[in-house]
């Protein structure tokens, strides 16, 4: 008969999980690739720290100035800044929190309470949370230096605000992950996005026509914002300084109500996961097939110009793209943001009366932004292959065909998005001069193809498995991030210098000529690199397979 063990306390379970994570990290450092990954992480961490520390000074100075100058209402603005960053940054950039391996933990006699606490603690380990906590601490320090008596109240408000934010972030991440896990909701999401993009185009004429009434409606709504958590945090603090205990208690109590409400919602979500919630597409038992298992491929082959192997890889990449919710989101964001930028900052836009950025600079700037976002996944292009990577090595295919297939798919997406964005920019901002248009197009070819060569090398040198369709804990290898960062800066720097050279020398066609030359060199270099990279993939296949089949 099995011994019945005494129950283990939550703190002990958390300590065990933390120790497990630490041991996994320590053991992983025995491998060279993982050590390089850590070095890359440290480097990127240093860059990120500079940003966080710089803004921490700003939050410190802001809190100090607002309190010492008596502008207490303005403290809400600082809380709003942190709140928006904490909640929106993961959606736009990084994904949600560190990977909470609940399925692994569920094997153990873990209580739901411990499961919840561990899940929440994991939420504090991502960049947006760490940065926000640093800023909250900086605010606390600034407020305390300005008025030392405020420290206890500030600590209480910051603690509630912090817990509330991490709870909301985990909740939103969990909902989005659930939403994007199913094909139907993913399609609905895409539809809503397209609809919102189209709607945004009507925003400007609507603003012109109904601007005044909309503004007054917004101003009427503004007072209700004070009932939202960031404003409540600011108001609670202001009430303490004004020695209004009732105001403080009311605001703090409302903050607590928010915390309880979101905690209850998150508890529900985690409870579903604890019970073994299945997010997979077809978890339900299948009914008997109503149609043949294989759809007929009788139509004309749209990829007949490609070799069968390259065409097969392009098709596979397309299937993978359409089934990966997070990748979907990444693709939809850039054109949407370009549209928003073009409506707000562009020179010819009627609402800014020609005082914005000119089309000459806006065009290359927006294209650079688009490439920056869309090229990032190429630096770890085997991330979602999983065990399938073995097929590339057992099939009679040279690795250059694998690269070609993957790169062709990415270039097709880029082409589509760049065409869409160029169309939007032309419509919203107007066309730049002919020499700038040619220079921008040639620069796109140069930077994309040039980066692809480096990205292919990075993909086989610093591979890292990522979980399909998950938004949590999706992190590239630290070295891959560094390589991407370095090559984007290099390409961007070269392009910027060349663009400005045209102005300095007074020869407007010089950048276009230079970029056409560089584009030709990049394309030649790309094809020349394929065989060498194919050879490299062969020598590094063990590392690649090991990293992706884990």
């Amino acid at each position, binding site marked *: 008969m099995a011994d019945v063990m005494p129950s283990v306390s939550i703190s002990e379970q958390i300590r065990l999980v933390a120790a497990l994570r630490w041991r996994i990290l320590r053991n992983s450092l025995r491998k060279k690739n993982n050590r390089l990954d850590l070095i890359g992480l440290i480097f990127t961490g240093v860059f990120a720290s500079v940003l966080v520390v710089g803004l921490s000074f700003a939050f410190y100075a802001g809190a100090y100035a607002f309190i010492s100058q008596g502008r207490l209402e303005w403290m809400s603005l600082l809380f709003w800044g942190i709140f928006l960053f904490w909640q929106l940054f993961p959606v736009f950039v990084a994904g949600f929190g560190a990977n909470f391996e609940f399925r692994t933990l569920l094997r153990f006699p873990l209580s739901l309470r411990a499961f919840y606490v561990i899940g929440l603690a994991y939420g504090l380990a991502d960049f947006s949370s760490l940065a926000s906590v640093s800023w909250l601490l900086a605010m606390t320090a600034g407020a305390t230096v300005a008025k030392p008596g405020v420290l206890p109240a500030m600590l209480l408000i910051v603690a509630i605000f912090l817990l509330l934010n991490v709870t909301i972030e985990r909740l939103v991440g969990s909902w989005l992950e659930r939403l994007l896990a199913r094909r139907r909701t993913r399609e609905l999401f895409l539809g809503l996005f397209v609809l919102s993009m189209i709607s945004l185009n009507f925003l400007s004429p609507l603003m012109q026509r109904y601007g005044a009434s909309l503004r007054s409606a917004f101003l009427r709504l503004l007072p209700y914002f004070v009932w939202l958590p960031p404003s409540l945090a600011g108001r609670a603090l202001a009430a303490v300084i004004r020695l209004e205990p009732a105001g403080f208690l009311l605001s703090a109590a409302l903050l607590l109500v928010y915390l309880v409400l979101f905690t209850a919602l998150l508890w529900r979500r985690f409870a579903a996961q604890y019970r073994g919630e299945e997010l997979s597409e077809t978890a339900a038992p299948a009914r008997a097939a109503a149609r043949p298992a294989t759809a007929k491929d009788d139509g004309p082959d749209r990829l007949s110009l490609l070799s069968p*192997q390259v065409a097969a890889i392009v098709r596979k990449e397309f299937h993978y793209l359409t089934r990966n919710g997070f990748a979907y989101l990444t693709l939809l964001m850039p054109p949407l943001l370009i549209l928003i930028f073009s409506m707000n900052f562009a020179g010819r836009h009627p609402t800014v009366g020609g005082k914005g950025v000119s089309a000459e600079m806006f065009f290359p700037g927006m294209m650079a932004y688009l490439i920056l976002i869309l090229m990032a996944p190429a630096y770890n292009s085997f991330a979602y292959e999983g065990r399938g990577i073995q097929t590339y090595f*057992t*099939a*009679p295919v040279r690795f250059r065909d694998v690269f070609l297939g993957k790169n062709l798919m990415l270039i097709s997406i880029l082409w589509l998005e760049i065409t869409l964005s160029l169309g939007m920019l032309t419509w919203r901002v107007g066309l730049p001069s002919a020499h700038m248009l040619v220079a921008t197009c040639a620069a796109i070819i140069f930077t994309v193809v040039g980066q692809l060569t480096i990205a292919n090398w990075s993909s086989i040198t610093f591979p890292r498995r990522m979980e*399909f369709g998950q938004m949590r804990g999706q992190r590239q290898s630290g070295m891959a991030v560094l390589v991407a960062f370095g090559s984007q800066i290099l390409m961007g720097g070269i392009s910027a210098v060349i663009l400005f050279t045209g102005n300095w020398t007074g020869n407007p066609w010089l950048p276009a000529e230079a970029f056409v030359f560089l584009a030709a060199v990049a394309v030649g270099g790309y094809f020349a690199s394929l065989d060498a990279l194919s050879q490299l993939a062969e020598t590094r296949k063990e590392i690649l397979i090991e990293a992706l089949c884990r």
Partner: protein
Amino acid sequence: MPEMAIQTQKLTRTFGALTAVDSVDLQVTPGQFFGFLGPNGAGKSTTIKILTGLLAPTSGSMQLLGVDFAAKPVEVKRQIGVVPEGMGLFERLTGSEYLKFVGRMYGLDRATTQRRSEELLDFMQLADRPKTMIADYSHGMQKKLALAAAVIHGPRILFLDEPFEGVDALAAGALKALLARMTERGTTIFLTSHVLEIVERLCSHVGIIHKGRLVAQGSIEELRAGISGEAGTKTTLEQIFLSIVGQDGTERPQLEELSWLM
């Protein structure tokens, strides 16, 4: 001398100080159903990975169907099919999409790929879940799909790493019949399995690897004769296996040490 299906000379693979495969000289003739046996960690999977191009040998050479693997890897891979450890499936494709992908990777034309995919899915009883992604298949279904993908191009050598693990008895029976038919038609099958009864029933020849070294190789009859000293005895493969790998003096774990479990 007839052309060998698989031939290796002093095939060796080391991982740091550990020699996982140590100077292995394998000889498998065409049409043989070859069972590759060994205790856990003996080097079976490492050997099969080397033979299928998933791992490079540290030293030694190998020829498949008379072609040097290192010199012409793509030519060799055209002739072989593989169900690797972990199956190597793209889990976010449907079964049909995956078979079409593999067929095209092996250079089959669209019509042939389509026809063979349908036939294989029917045979493997996977045709009734057309929209189901591989990630949502059961382990046994994934195994059957991996096997279907390995044979879609009609390979001359088939490498199978634990092909019956997790496959139900009904499907296993059909698979065994399929494999037997393939060997009758000249396909060489190289199989690893922990289930010695399966190997004994299916395989004509056996190789036993222990601590990286190939300690026995031949037909089951030859191995029986080697153990008992005479041919035609009723020694089982399990007895042969235990007598060969149990001769190195390794102590078996003592149950008394786990008294708290009993």
